[in-house]
C-alpha cells in the first residue's frame, strides 16, 4: 500500500512538474528511408549520379571534399562505375569529368605555377585556397569539408537531409543575426535571440543560406528536380562518399555471417557428441 502511494506521488510530481530548461536541443532529424540502409542495402546508382551533379553544381561552390579523387567516382559501387573499365582511371566518363577541372600544379621544366586539366588521379579541388579565404567569402563561417559528413554527424544521412530541407521562416520573436539563417535541425542555442513568449524554438542558426530550390539542377535522366529530390540525391552521394566501401563491406559481411553460422553449428554438434558420455 505504502509503495503504491509512493509510485502515485512520483507520477503526480512528474505531471505537475514545471517547464523544462531552455530548448537547446535541435529537432530530431526527419525519418527518411534510404536504399543503402540495412544489411542488404545498396546504392541506387542513378540517384548517386544525380547527387554528384547536385554536389558539383551547388555544394562544391563552397564545400571541399578533400578525401575524394575523381577515380573514386568510377570505382566499384561508385556513381560512374562501368563494368567495361575495371581500372577506374580508364573510365571514359571519369576522365571527361576530371578534364573539366583546372588543377594547380608546377611546371616540371620551369617550376612555374601552372594550371592543367585534371586526371582521374587528381583529388577534387577545393573551392578556396585556404581557410581564411573560405571564411572571408562566407561571412566568417567555414563550410565544412563533406568527405565524411554523413559519418561525422549522429544519424548522418537523416541529419544532412533535414538541414537541407528544414529551413523555415523564423518564429515570431526570434531575431536572426545578419548573415545567419534559422534552421530547427541545426544544433545550437537561440535563447539569447528570442524575445517571444513560451518555449524557446528548437534548433540554431546556420550561416549557409538555403542552398537548394526546385529546378536548381537539371537531372539528365529526366527525374523531376524538386527540392526534396535534390536533397535526397545529394545525401545518397554524400553517404557513398563517406564510406565508398560500404556495399562491399555488407556483401562480405553476409558471407562472413553465413560462414560463422555453419562453423558454430558444426562446433555445437561436435561439442554435444564429445560431451555425451560425461556426467556433469
Amino acid at each position, binding site marked *: 500500500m505504502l509503495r503504491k502511494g509512493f509510485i502515485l506521488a512520483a507520477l503526480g510530481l512528474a505531471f505537475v512538474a514545471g517547464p523544462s530548461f531552455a530548448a537547446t536541443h535541435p529537432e530530431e532529424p526527419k525519418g527518411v528511408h534510404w536504399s543503402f540502409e540495412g544489411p542488404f542495402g545498396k546504392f541506387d546508382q542513378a540517384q548517386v549520379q544525380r547527387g554528384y551533379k547536385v554536389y558539383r553544381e551547388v555544394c562544391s561552390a563552397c564545400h571541399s571534399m578533400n578525401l575524394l579523387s575523381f577515380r573514386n567516382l568510377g570505382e566499384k559501387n561508385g556513381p560512374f562505375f562501368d563494368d567495361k573499365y575495371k581500372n577506374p582511371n580508364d573510365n571514359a566518363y571519369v576522365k571527361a569529368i576530371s578534364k573539366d577541372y583546372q588543377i594547380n600544379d608546377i611546371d616540371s621544366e620551369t617550376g612555374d605555377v601552372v594550371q592543367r586539366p585534371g586526371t582521374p588521379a587528381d583529388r577534387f579541388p577545393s573551392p578556396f585556397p585556404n581557410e581564411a579565404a573560405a571564411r572571408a567569402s562566407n561571412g566568417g563561417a567555414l563550410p565544412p569539408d563533406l568527405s565524411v559528413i554523413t559519418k561525422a554527424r549522429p544519424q548522418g544521412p537523416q541529419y544532412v537531409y533535414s538541414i537541407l530541407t528544414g529551413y523555415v521562416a523564423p518564429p515570431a520573436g526570434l531575431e536572426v543575426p545578419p548573415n545567419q539563417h534559422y534552421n530547427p535541425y541545426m544544433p545550437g542555442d537561440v535563447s539569447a535571440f528570442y524575445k517571444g513568449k513560451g518555449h524557446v524554438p528548437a534548433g540554431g542558426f546556420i550561416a549557409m543560406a538555403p542552398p537548394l530550390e526546385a529546378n536548381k539542377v537539371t537531372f539528365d535522366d529526366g527525374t523531376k528536380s524538386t527540392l526534396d529530390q535534390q536533397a535526397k540525391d545529394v545525401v545518397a552521394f554524400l553517404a557513398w562518399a563517406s564510406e565508398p566501401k560500404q556495399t562491399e*563491406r555488407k556483401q562480405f559481411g553476409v558471407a562472413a555471417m553465413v560462414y560463422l553460422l555453419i562453423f558454430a553449428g558444426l562446433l555445437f554438434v561436435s561439442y554435444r557428441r564429445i560431451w555425451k558420455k560425461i556426467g556433469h
Partner: protein
Amino acid sequence: MSGHSNYEPKTGFERWLDTRLPIVRLAYDSVIDFPTPKNLNYWWTFGGILAVCLGIQIVTGIVLAMHYVPHVDHAFNSVERIMRDVNYGWLVRYMHSNGASMFFIAVYIHMFRGLYYGSYKAPREVLWILGCVIYLLMMATAFMGYVLPWGQMSFHGAVVITNLFGALPLVGESITTWLWGGFAVDNPTLNRFFSLHFLLPFMIAGVVILHIWALHVPGNGNPTGVNVKSKEDTVPFHPYYTVKDGFAISVFLLMFAVFVFFQPNALGDAVNYVPANPLVTPAHIVPEWYFLPFYAILRAVPDKLAGVLLMFGAIAMLFVLPWLDTSKVRSMRYRPTAKLYFGIFVLACLVLGYCGGRLPDDHVIGNLSTFQLLDADLNSMVWLSRVAAAYYFAYFLVVLPILGLTETPLPQPESISAPVLPANAPAGAAASPEKRG
C-alpha cells in the same frame, strides 16, 4: 606447468628435444592434458574469447601501423586512406576499432564471473591480481588507441584525461607537461601515444602468460567453488574444453561480425569523424562506453583531486578484493544474501555507465523538478552517480567484509561430481550435458 606430466614423447625427435627444451611437454600439459573441472559453464569460456580478442587486436594493429601516419597533420587522413585505398583496409580498421569494444565486453563478463564465483579467493589471489594488471594495461592501451585517429573526441578526450594528472598536488603540472612532451596535447603527445599503444599489447601478452601460469598452478575454479577432489571431477582440456570454447568463440565472433560489417560506427562517437581542432571544443566530451562508469565516478565528486583519487580507487578495490571478502565459501551459488548484493552491484555498474554518458545536470526522470541538495538538483545524473558510486565502494568495503562473517551459507556439495551423480549411479551415466552447459 605443475604437478605430474603425462607426456610421452612419441618420436625420436620429440625425445631428443624433450631432454633439451621440453616445450612440447609444456604445450601438452597446458592445453591438451590439463585436468579441468567438468562442470564449467559458459561463463568460463570468456578466457578463451579474450585470448582471441587479444590476438585479433595485435594482428590487425600491426597491419594498421604499416599504413598509419602518427602526425597531427596526417593522422586523420591516413586512417581514412586505410579505409578507402588500402586493400581490405576498411575490414582491418573496423575489426580493430570494434575489436576494442568486444575486448571490453568480454573482459567485463570475465570479471563479473570472477566476482560471482569467488575466483579471487585463495589460492587464486595472484591469478586475480594479474588479471587486474591486464585490465589496467587494457584501459591504458584503449585510451591511447582512441587518440590515434586524431578526431575531435580523440583530441579533447586526451586533453581531459591527461589533465587529470594535473590535479595531483605539487607535481601535477610537471607530470602533465612531461606526459604531453610540451605545454599542450600536440604532435609529441600523438607520437608517444602511438609508440606506447604499440608497446602495451605485448606487455599485456606477457602478463597473460603469467595469468595462465598462475591459473595452471591451482587449476580452474568451477561454479560450485568446491575443490577438485578426484580424477572423477575433471576432464582433459582437449577435446572437452577446446570444443566448448571453440563453440563459444564462434558465437562471440558472430556478434563481433554484426558490428564490424553492419554497424561499424555504432559504438563510436560521430564527432570523432571531425578532424581534431584544438580551438573548437565539442559540446559534450564523453569517453568510449567502456570507460563511462569511471567517468561517472570522476564527475560525481565536486573536487577534482578527490574525483581522480576515487576513480583510481574504484580500480584499486579490485586489487585488494581477495582480502576484503571474508567469506570462506567461494561460489555465490551457496550465498543467497551475497547473490542479492552482487545483483545490485552489477546494476550499480550499469547505472554508473548510463550516468557517464549523460550530462551531469540531465534529469533522471523527465520533467520532474525536485529540490536542490548541496550543489545539484536531487533529480540529476550527478546524484544518481553518487548513489551508485557509494554502493560500488560499499560493496567492497562494507558488504563483502561483513557479510562473510554474518551470513549463513547454504550447504555445499561434497564434490564437483556429487550434485549431478545420483547416489550409487555409475559415473558417466548421468545428466545430459546441456542442462548445466
